[in-house]
């Protein structure tokens, strides 16, 4: 490869309506694995990837979906600002071929902006199945840019897309004859008058197309453009008069007239370039039948609940099999190392620190993977959007938006990206409420804690116990939302405008990618935070080495050894050894830290070990289990961690601990996400204080109820 020829990297941005397949195309081209999902709006912030095509470097940018260039939610703004202000070299406008009427609305605005663009007729397979045929060559001249048929899921046409991007970016290529969206005579006259004024103010600076675009934007009342032209008082004044007169004469604002005009243009264009077969395809009939059931007025909600239950039950039961295999693998490794390594501190660190912590956490990998399989399935098929529709009214009662369902469900996977997904919600207050309550959702990192405790204390009903925790997490989230919306974040009702995507068979690749991505994320965390955490905890519990014991155990033991052998002697020896180990642990650094904080949990009767586990969980929730694993590694017998902890609490306390661990604090990554989305540390502080207070109070109530009832 030669490095002497330096050609500028080409920036190619993918834009289009939500759910048009941008991320799928981005993934295919970049070979990356961003999260795709069949509900509107999964890409939340612009994402970039450098790729190479025919020897040319291309910076590919996946933008959040937008329906129009006049943005309303923050994520739409991100998508729009990129096109408006960053001005990528080429814009690839992804269109849903089965839904061109609405997809082309954004295109009309891109045409007016005059950015170099390529149109991808994506989902061409679906269009074909719907009996839609499109005269692609006719579209090329009508849209003023290359039009390419693509199927993102199979990769069909994607290379042609990049070829076309290189071609139109090449200065040697003759530009496509420019086209313009025509409006009715009154609007055109107004545009012309404003344009004349603009050309007077910016002489020679702008092409005819640019000044027309500016005139239209001004007439549409685009705030940002109006501020940009703020210094031209006469212009602003003229635009104001034009808008007022138009509205007076036509009983319709300029904005609405432009929107109607654009749809009129699209209608005309599709009359020529598209034919739709009259018969309703079987597939559409089938989708309607499926919706008849899933969106049924009485059955819809029970089915939703049932599907959620199946998801958690399967996560638990099916996950048990591979978990057993991993567990025996870890045990075998531990036995092997124990056999070959000479006794030393290193051996102890490896076995009781690293292997206990990492091994204790990694056994939950199958559960995490299965959970993400279901989440991917729900989002890929288009079911989540239906859930949002079914639950909107209910959510509304709780001061939440129907779209809050998406972050809440995503929260079952991982809270941090889930909170980022709140950007799809229109209103600011509603958005903040959602980011404050999402951390209550029992994320996959908390799953191991729940499983450990459910298995150790409620083994007969472990699956139901975990499901109960999931229910509690959503109840807490909703309950808190209602509280917030009635008090600190009293909110106005906000509109709920959501496209219902068609059902799509999930592509196995996409689902596998999604599972792999999250499994890899989990493993990465185990390999970093959990590994380091386990080592740190091991050191903290091993040091200081010099401890002044309350009695001389060694002397007592030696003395015992000289006595004649008896059952009594053995049990006394065991008692003394256990006593010594306990005291050693309590006087270690870890013990001291735990003891210092333990009074906080005194009312619940949690010990200092539980305290330590709780403290480490702040960094990452998986660390709770890892801490237990390291703390009990010494006393661990063949039955493992579950039996080691099973005697340490009564059922009420165990339940209280589960509730506390579920609710107590967002982890560090989540705190960062709240800070970003809610926009201030004030809300982070609020979230921390509220969740700690709530978790502590609930745990206390449970323990005391247990005292009364048990």
């Amino acid at each position, binding site marked *: 490869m030669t490095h002497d020829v330096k050609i500028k990297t080409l920036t190619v941005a993918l834009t289009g309506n939500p759910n048009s397949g941008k991320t799928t195309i981005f993934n295919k081209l970049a070979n990356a694995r961003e999260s795709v999902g069949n509900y509107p709006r999964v890409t939340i912030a612009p994402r970039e990837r450098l790729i190479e095509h025919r020897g040319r470097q291309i910076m590919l940018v996946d933008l959040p979906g937008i*329906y129009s260039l006049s943005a309303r939610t923050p994520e739409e703004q991100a998508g729009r600002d990129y096109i408006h202000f960053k001005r990528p070299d080429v814009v690839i406008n992804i269109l849903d071929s089965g839904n061109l009427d*609405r997809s082309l609305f954004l295109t009309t605005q891109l045409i007016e902006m005059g950015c170099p663009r390529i149109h991808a007729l994506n989902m061409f397979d679906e269009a074909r199945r719907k009996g839609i045929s499109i005269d692609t060559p006719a579209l090329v001249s009508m849209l003023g840019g290359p039009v390419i048929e693509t199927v993102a899921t199979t990769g069909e046409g994607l290379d042609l897309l990049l070829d076309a991007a290189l071609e139109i970016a090449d200065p040697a290529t003759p530009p496509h004859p420019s086209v313009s969206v025509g409006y009715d005579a009154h609007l055109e006259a107004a545009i012309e008058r404003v344009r004349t004024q603009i050309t007077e103010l910016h002489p020679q600076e702008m092409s005819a197309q640019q000044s027309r675009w500016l005139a239209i934007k001004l007439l549409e009342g685009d705030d940002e453009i109006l501020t940009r032209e703020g210094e031209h008082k006469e212009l602003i004044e003229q635009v104001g008069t034009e808008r007022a007169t138009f509205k007076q004469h036509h009983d*319709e604002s300029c904005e*609405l007239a432009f*929107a109607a005009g654009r*749809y009129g243009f699209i209608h005309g264009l599709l009359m020529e370039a598209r034919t739709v077969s009259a018969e309703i395809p079987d597939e559409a009939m089938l989708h309607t039948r499926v919706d008849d059931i899933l*969106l049924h007025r009485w059955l819809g909600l029970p089915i939703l609940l049932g599907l959620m239950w199946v998801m958690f039950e399967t996560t638990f039961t099916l996950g048990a099999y591979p978990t057993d295999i991993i567990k025996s693998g870890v045990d075998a490794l531990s036995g092997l190392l124990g056999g070959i390594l000479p006794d030393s501190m290193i051996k102890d660190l490896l076995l009781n620190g690293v292997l206990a912590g990492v091994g204790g956490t990694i056994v939950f990998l199958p559960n995490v993977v299965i959970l993400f399989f279901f989440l991917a399935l729900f989002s890929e098929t288009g079911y989540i959007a239906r859930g949002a*529709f079914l639950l*909107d009214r209910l959510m509304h009662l709780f001061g939440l938006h129907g779209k809050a369902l998406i972050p809440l469900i995503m929260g079952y996977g991982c809270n941090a990206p889930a909170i980022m997904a709140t950007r799809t919600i229109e209103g600011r207050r509603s958005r903040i409420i959602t980011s404050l309550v999402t951390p209550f959702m029992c994320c996959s990192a908390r799953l191991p804690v729940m499983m450990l405790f459910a298995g150790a204390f409620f083994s007969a009903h472990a699956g139901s116990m975990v499901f109960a925790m999931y229910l509690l997490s959503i109840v807490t989230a909703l309950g808190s939302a209602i509280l917030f919306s009635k008090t600190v974040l009293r909110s106005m009702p906000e509109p709920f405008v959501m*496209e219902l995507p068609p059902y799509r068979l999930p592509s196995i690749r996409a689902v596998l990618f999604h599972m792999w991505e999250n499994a890899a994320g989990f493993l990465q965390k185990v390999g970093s935070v959990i590994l380091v955490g386990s080592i740190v905890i091991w050191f903290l519990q091993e040091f200081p080495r010099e401890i002044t014991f309350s009695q001389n155990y060694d002397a007592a033991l030696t003395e015992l050894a000289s006595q004649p052998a008896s059952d009594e002697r053995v049990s006394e020896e065991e008692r003394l050894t256990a006593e010594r180990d306990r005291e050693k642990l309590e006087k270690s650094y870890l013990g001291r830290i735990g003891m210092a904080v333990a009074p906080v949990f005194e009312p619940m009767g949690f010990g200092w070990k539980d305290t330590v586990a709780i403290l480490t969980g702040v960094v990452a929730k998986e660390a709770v289990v890892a801490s237990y694993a390291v703390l009990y590694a010494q006393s661990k017998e063949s039955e493992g961690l579950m039996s080691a902890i099973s005697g340490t609490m009564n059922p009420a306390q165990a339940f209280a601990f589960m509730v506390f661990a579920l609710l107590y604090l967002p982890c560090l990554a989540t705190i960062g996400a709240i800070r970003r989305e809610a926009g201030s540390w004030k809300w982070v502080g609020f979230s921390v204080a509220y969740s700690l207070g709530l978790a502590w109070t609930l745990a206390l109530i449970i323990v005391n109820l247990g005292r009364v009832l048990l």
Partner: protein
Amino acid sequence: MQNSQMEAVTLADLGPGQSGCVVKVADDALGHNLAAMGLVRGATVSLNRTAPMGNPRIYAIKGYQLSLRNEDARKVLLRLS
């Protein structure tokens, strides 16, 4: 609001299986948003489905399904067809 048109109904009044033609959309942020989604003067719209508690509802517009709350759907005036 209703006196000027004889048959002025809103999108929220549409019954099951009924369809109508958009006459007017409210001139506010939501109205502009709805217009961008295809609810413009002259567009045909029909009611597809209703959620468990009667709200929101799903409409067929421009060949796709759009879900709206009834309070938002009132921003759209229709002529029944």
